[in-house]
Each structure stands twice: as structure tokens, then as C-alpha cells.
């Protein structure tokens, strides 16, 4: 076993020495492999980066939301949240009562802002920084507080019926509640029950939205389904699928073309370089190098240069994208490109390595 390790080490050392002592071949190979990585990252990689960015946007909670709007007499209550708890594929669900307009108590003619009772916002999933506080305590989104003229995020709001609400602070509203902005809520305990006008359900993935619609619809327990309206981000899911499909196909095709073309070019250049060194390989064969050893030497020498070039090329391309502010592909993708470029180079080096191993020592060493 030691002998084998020593032999592998000797081949690696010899390959490194050869790469170092043949700068033209090494630089040419380096430039082509690095160029291959740069081309892939700057074209297909940028496409993948854009695709990942678009996908991330579309897969955000806002892109997988189901909003149920129910008329006040539709019979939908906050009990729906309890039923939704047992449905798989739901990340978060919240319910909101009918809106009543309130104004800043200090500005009687101020802007009216809708106030709703809410259930579910007290869960950690909602991101809301508060717990249920009773009917007279309210929290508002930035938009709502600005509309009320409460720049210090506190004060009192009054409804047309004369009910006062103490504004406790800002409600950090998640993106999936953007449909019911401006949002001013009086959070209710999960044990309490009340009429619901809006139910917001966030699916675990955009693909689940379509299948969750009938489930959510069924669980509303509405007396009259014609009084219920469903709004979804299903269209976004179609866009996401389409974008994924189109950009993936484009990126794959481009990558294959670049790898294929550069690989073929590399094979041709390496064959040419082997022919330039045919006397070297002829001498090696005459002095006792087996064909397999010559193949190993050529492949190992190419591997070292390709590995270095892949790393440098990929890093340089990534740095370029960062500097220009273009979409950057994921680290996994970049590593995959570097590995694939190295593998493509080794594959391209196989025919030249066999060409080298089959040099006829007699022909190469004969002195005219």
C-alpha cells in the first residue's frame, strides 16, 4: 500500500513539475478552462442567479397566500382557525373581523382608518410583537398610524359609535397581509369567538395553493358560499413555474453549449500540444514509461491546471457579477460549474493522453 501511495505521489510530483516547466501549455490550458468558467458564470450563471432571485420572490409568503373575504352575514367565524390547524400544508392562518372606521380622537375630522378584530396575529408565526389585549387595545401598521396622524405610534382612536380604542404601538405587518392594509387591529384571544370578514391562509409552497383552495373553502362552514370570495396568488405560481422552466432550459442549454464547444477546443489544443511534445513522450516510452503511466501523467498535469483555473475563473466571474450588481448564482451552482469545468477538461484530455501514450519511441528518437 505504501508503494502505491508513493507511486501516486511520484506521479503527482512529476505532473506538477511538468506543468511548471511547460508554461506555454499550462497558461494556454489555464486560460481556456478559466475562460470556460467565466463564460458559464457570466451567461448561464447570471441567468440562474436571476431565476433564483425571481423564484425567491415568488416563493415568499406573499406569493402563496389565500385570502377569503366573507360578507358579514356569510356565517364565517373565528372558529375556522381551529379547523385549519389540522390541515397540512399551511404555514400560517389568521382571521379578521368586519372593518369599522375610526379616527384620531384628537382630530375629529381626520382620516378614517378601518379597525378590525383579529385572531391568530398573536402567534409567533405572524411576527406580531404583542399578545391579545382585549377589545379596547389596538395596534396599527405604519400606514394606519400615519393615516391616523399618530406619528409617535400612540394615542386614542374613536369610532363613529363613540367607542374609544387605545393605540398601543406599531404592528409589524408581514407581506402576506398587504391586501388588508392599512391594518389597525384589536387582537382577540384564541378562546374567544367572533364574526370574521377576512381569513388569510399562507401555504407552505406556491404549488399547494391550488389544492388548498377547496379545503379552505370547505372549512369556512359558511351558510351561503355565494357570499364568500377567494383571492389567491395562483397566477404567481403559474409565472413561477413558467419562469423556472424557461430559464432552466435556457441555462442548461447554454451551459452544455459552452462546455461542449470549449471541451472540443481544449481536446484539439491539447492534441496539438501533445504533438509538439511527441519527442518528450517518445523518450519517456523508450526509457520505460508504460502507456498507462504516460496517460496518468498527462491527465494529472491537466487536472492540476484545470483545478486551479476553475477556481480562479469561477471566483473572477463571481467577483465581476458582484461588482456589476448582476444576479449572482448560488455557491452550490458556482462550485458545480468549477467541478464540471474540471471534469470536462479531464474528459477533453483523454484523447490527447492516449495520443501521447502511443507515440512511437523509435520514430520520435530517430536522428536523421
Amino acid at each position: 500500500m505504501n508503494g502505491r501511495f508513493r507511486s501516486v505521489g511520484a506521479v503527482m510530483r512529476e505532473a506538477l513539475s511538468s506543468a511548471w516547466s511547460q508554461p506555454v501549455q499550462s497558461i494556454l490550458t489555464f486560460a481556456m478552462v478559466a475562460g470556460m468558467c467565466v463564460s458559464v458564470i457570466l451567461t448561464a450563471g447570471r441567468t440562474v442567479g436571476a431565476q433564483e432571485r425571481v423564484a425567491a420572490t415568488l416563493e415568499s409568503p406573499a406569493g402563496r397566500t389565500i385570502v377569503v373575504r366573507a360578507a358579514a352575514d356569510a356565517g364565517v367565524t373565528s372558529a375556522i382557525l381551529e379547523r385549519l390547524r389540522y390541515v397540512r400544508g399551511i404555514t400560517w392562518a389568521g382571521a379578521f373581523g368586519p372593518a369599522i372606521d375610526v379616527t384620531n380622537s384628537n382630530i375629529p375630522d381626520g382620516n378614517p382608518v378601518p379597525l378590525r378584530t383579529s385572531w391568530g396575529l398573536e402567534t409567533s408565526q405572524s411576527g406580531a410583537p404583542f399578545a391579545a389585549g382585549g377589545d379596547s387595545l389596538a395596534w396599527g401598521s405604519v400606514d394606519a398610524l400615519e393615516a391616523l396622524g399618530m406619528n409617535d405610534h400612540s394615542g386614542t382612536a374613536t369610532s363613529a359609535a363613540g367607542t374609544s380604542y387605545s393605540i398601543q404601538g406599531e404592528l409589524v405587518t408581514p407581506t402576506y397581509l398587504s391586501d388588508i392594509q392599512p391594518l389597525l387591529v384589536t387582537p382577540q384571544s384564541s378562546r374567544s369567538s367572533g364574526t370574521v370578514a377576512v381569513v388569510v391562509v399562507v401555504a407552505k409552497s406556491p404549488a399547494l395553493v391550488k389544492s388548498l383552495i377547496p379545503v379552505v373553502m370547505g372549512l369556512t362552514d359558511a351558510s351561503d358560499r355565494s357570499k364568500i370570495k377567494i383571492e389567491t396568488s395562483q397566477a404567481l405560481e403559474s409565472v413561477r413555474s413558467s419562469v423556472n422552466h424557461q430559464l432552466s432550459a435556457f441555462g442548461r442549454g447554454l451551459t452544455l453549449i459552452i462546455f461542449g464547444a470549449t471541451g472540443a477546443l481544449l481536446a484539439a489544443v491539447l492534441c496539438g500540444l501533445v504533438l509538439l511534445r511527441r519527442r518528450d513522450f517518445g523518450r519517456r516510452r523508450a526509457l520505460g514509461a508504460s502507456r498507462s503511466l504516460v496517460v496518468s501523467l498527462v491527465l494529472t498535469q491537466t487536472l492540476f491546471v484545470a483545478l486551479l483555473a476553475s477556481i480562479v475563473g469561477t471566483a473572477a466571474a463571481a467577483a465581476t457579477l458582484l461588482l456589476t450588481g448582476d444576479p449572482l448564482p448560488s455557491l452550490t451552482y458556482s462550485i458545480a460549474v468549477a467541478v464540471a469545468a474540471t471534469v470536462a477538461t479531464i474528459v477533453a484530455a483523454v484523447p490527447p493522453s492516449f495520443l501521447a501514450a502511443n507515440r512511437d519511441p523509435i520514430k520520435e528518437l530517430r536522428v536523421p
Partner: protein
Amino acid sequence: MRADLVVRDLTFEYPHGLRVLDQVNAVFSAGLVTAVTGPSGRGKSTLMYILGLMLRPTAGSVLLQDEVISAGTDSARSARRARDIGFVFQDAALDPSRSVIDNVVETALYRGESRAKAVMRGVELLRKFDVPIRPGAKPSQVSGGQAQRIALCRALLAEPRLLLADEPTGNLDHDSSDVVIAALRDHAATGAVVIVVTHDARVVDRCDEVIQL
């Protein structure tokens, strides 16, 4: 004296039909330097390449210490070349891109031998043959005579049982030729078979045996 290298009924014909060796029988004695000489085109170099296992004979065999070495796979023949056979070519055939010491120890890789040990032995040989050793010196920086001595060091590194030299003094002046011939004789004295293909009458005169083709 034991006959160390024997050629039996050796025939070689090139693929296009030209027969250069026909039923050649010869004995190359261990401990002696044998010159192979004759007019051009008689197959001197071809014989050397067959003895050096770079060509397969069309018929007949080559035996080294009663073992047939002319048959076998390419891999086995390569291994034997690296282990048992040393070569000195007419133009030294050094790798110009590598250092002098790298050239001398090149065959250690093919034998699977430790490079460190090979370097020690290579340095000894370079000193013995009076080749200045400068770290990193390339073959292009030495004279023709020194290049041939470097090639000789490479051939002697493994202390081969068979040393083959093809016109080793063809490009050398008298002094350098004398160094090379003396080295070949010294190596034969260790019990090896040394065969020199040459046209040079001075070299032939200093060989122990002569085979005329």
C-alpha cells in the same frame, strides 16, 4: 564466461515488407563491450530497438540470462526497459524543459523507485562524470559532450544488466568520446552486457567484440 544476452533466429520485417534482419543469431557476453557495426540499412538500429524491447521481432527471440524477454505485454516490456535496460541515444535525448538532475533521475519514476535515493545516486554519477551540478541548470546550458555524459548518467542510474548505446559518440569530440567509451567499459566490468551500435572505428577498436551486420 556466461553468455548473458542471446539472439536466436531473429528476423524483422517492416509492415511494408522490407526485411532488415533475417535469421540473425548472436551472443553478447556479460562483462564485455560488443560493437555492432556495418553499412547503413543493414538493421543495426533495428537490432538495438529489438534488444531494447521497443520493437517486437517478426520471428525468433531474445534471451537475457536464459529468460525470453522479447515476448510479453507492452506493460511488462516497459517495466523491463525501466528496470534492466539502459539507453544512450546519439543526441542524448534530454528533456530541455527540465533540470539536469531531473533528467538523470527520470527513470526512477518508471521503476517506482524513491526519488530521494535516485537523486543521491544521480548526483554521485554527475560528479563521477565531471558534469557541473548547478541547481536548476537546464540541458540547454551545457555542452554537447556534457549532455551526452548526462544521458550516460541517466542510463547508468539503475545499474542496468543491459546497456545499449546507439552511436553514443556521433556528435562528440575525441575527449568526450573517450569519457563515454571508458564509462561503457567500466559498466561492462560490473558484469553487464554492453552493446554499442557505431560507425566510429575508434570506438570499434576499443570494444571487446565486434558483430558485423
